[in-house]
């Protein structure tokens, strides 16, 4: 070991090469940590020092309901996204690489289109006079338009569609890491396909599911445009409520408190998941 390498290794006890992380850390520090601290300060100082914003927040039936809605929507979206993404990810994992990269390209391509445009497209499809309802009524399948929009159904459809790539990507990673021979071995030992799925594939892909699920869940918690356009007021999510509080009611203190509680709850959930799944496996799935 050269003296130089030795010095680098002993620098603050960090492994060699940690210096390369500095730009990223600075960026996160400046543009994430600092604003979050400012947010926290604002929530306990605006309009006057104290915890009155938090008292107002938890004392307000509206905010509590909106919090509950937000987590409900995020949970439903995450669950449905996992169900839809799993078969796609499995197919991608076992496909010949050349074909796989084409399918992959198609999935990624959707992410390059403007979010608002995609959400408006869903409005056109889902509304009472929309393509889907017209087609079904024209075929005589239904006589009354199905309520597909301005409710939880609409929000779920629109958000699952947007979240799919974020679930598929980590899932493919962890599925590809599974040796296909394990499944063959299971079959040879007399396991039915369902058993092989439940006892081999599912446990081994859990890190990917956990990593993707966490990402989708956390992203869903802060979503604004899609719930606002495809949901009804009874599914109002926190982001929209905070925007109203700040933009229209000029109540920065209450808005900050709500944003901070959302952040804290999200972090807590993340910590719980780390404990359950383990940081290493979670990281390995990404």
């Amino acid at each position: 070991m050269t003296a130089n390498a030795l010095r680098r290794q002993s620098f603050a006890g960090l492994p060699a090469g940690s210096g390369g992380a500095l730009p990223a850390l600075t960026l996160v520090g400046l543009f994430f940590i600092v604003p979050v601290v400012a947010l926290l300060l604002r929530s306990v100082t605006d309009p006057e020092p104290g915890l009155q914003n938090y008292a107002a927040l938890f004392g307000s039936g509206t905010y509590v309901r909106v919090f509950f809605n937000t987590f409900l929507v995020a949970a439903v979206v995450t669950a449905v996204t996992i169900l839809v993404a799993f078969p796609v990810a499995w197919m991608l994992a076992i496909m010949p690489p050349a074909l796989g990269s084409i399918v992959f390209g198609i999935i990624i391509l959707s992410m390059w289109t403007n979010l608002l445009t995609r959400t408006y497209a869903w409005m056109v499809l889902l509304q009472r006079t929309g393509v889907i309802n017209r087609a079904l009524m024209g075929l005589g399948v239904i006589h009354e338009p199905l309520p597909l929009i301005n409710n939880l159904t609409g929000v779920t459809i629109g958000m699952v569609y947007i979240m799919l790539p974020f679930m598929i990507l980590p899932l493919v990673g962890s599925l590809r890491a599974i040796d296909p021979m394990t499944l063959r071995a299971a079959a040879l030992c007399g396991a039915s396909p369902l058993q092989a799925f439940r006892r081999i594939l599912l446990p081994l892909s859990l890190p990917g599911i956990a990593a993707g699920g966490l990402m989708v869940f956390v992203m869903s918690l802060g979503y604004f445009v899609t719930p606002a356009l495809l949901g009804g007021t009874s599914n109002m999510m926190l982001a929209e409520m905070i925007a109203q509080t700040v933009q229209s009611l000029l109540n920065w203190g209450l808005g900050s408190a709500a944003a901070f509680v959302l952040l804290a709850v999200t972090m807590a959930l993340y910590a719980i998941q780390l404990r359950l799944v383990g940081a290493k496996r979670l990281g390995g799935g990404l």
Partner: protein
Amino acid sequence: MKLILAGVLAGLLAATAAKADEMVFTSWGGTTQEAQIKSWAEPFTASSGIKVLQDGPTDYGKLKAMVDAKNVTWDVVDVEMDFAIKAAKDGLLEPIDFAVVPKDDLDPRFSNEHAVGSFYYSFVLAWNKGAVSGEPTSWADMFDTKKFPGKRTFYKWSAPGVIEIALLADGVPADKLYPLDLERAFKKLDMIKSDIVWWGGGAESQQLIASGEAAFGQLWNGRVFALEKDGADVGVSWNQNLTAADVLVVPKGAKNKDSAMKFLAAAASPAGQAKFAEASGYAPVNTKAKAEMPADVVKGLPDAHVDGQINLDMNYWAEHRDEIATRWYAWQTK
């Protein structure tokens, strides 16, 4: 065309001048701001040499943050009048310099010490003729799901309008609306809650009615005017039309206050108001503007429907904004 060219030229000249005078105008974007640029900003730049930079959309949170931080980058902002009254009370606005802005011809309903009217509008009852049989004639019809089945659309945010509509539909006389009986209004709204589709912005309201997604709606008259111009098959009832206004304000500590006042004078002038009204279908706040407008445009303005017209009480709303909003969102998210 000539005027636009002149405006562009003047703008270029101003830009090349050593001490180019500039100011920032902020409004809501879309067709409204386009009309404001054409009717106010471009002629103003042509005559004064002051370049008007555009920003938007209006955001009250941002406005307050700018004033609080003493770093105000907006010089003139288009806001709703109830907000303007509240903001003036909170010390967020500069007083209007009426030595620069002529006051005499301004409609006193829509201007005050801290605000000059931008335009005024009415909430009207509009419907899709293909989706409705018969003609709804009053707000009460919008609450009668037996006689008029179908979805109805209302303005989503807590603002003057929907509460009053519910009370009128419940039989409250127009002169007894204030103070608002929120309990009674929400009880009335509960009757049709599951039939309501909310619109959050003007374009959405047009889309809902034009497509028949909602059979009826409470719309801004300018948006119905635009639908009719586009040939959509819509009906409109002006019975009990409810007036409200947008006003122009100068945030406290605006960097180009003098230019801002001059801009206000141009925007509120008879010519500026007439041009804007013609382009947007919203009504002028300058009483002399109508003389400069084509007769068929005048016919489509809220001014032509003063019979049964009701002025939403902006002062009442300014006073009770937060309290009503709290109740509104509690009810809406239930």
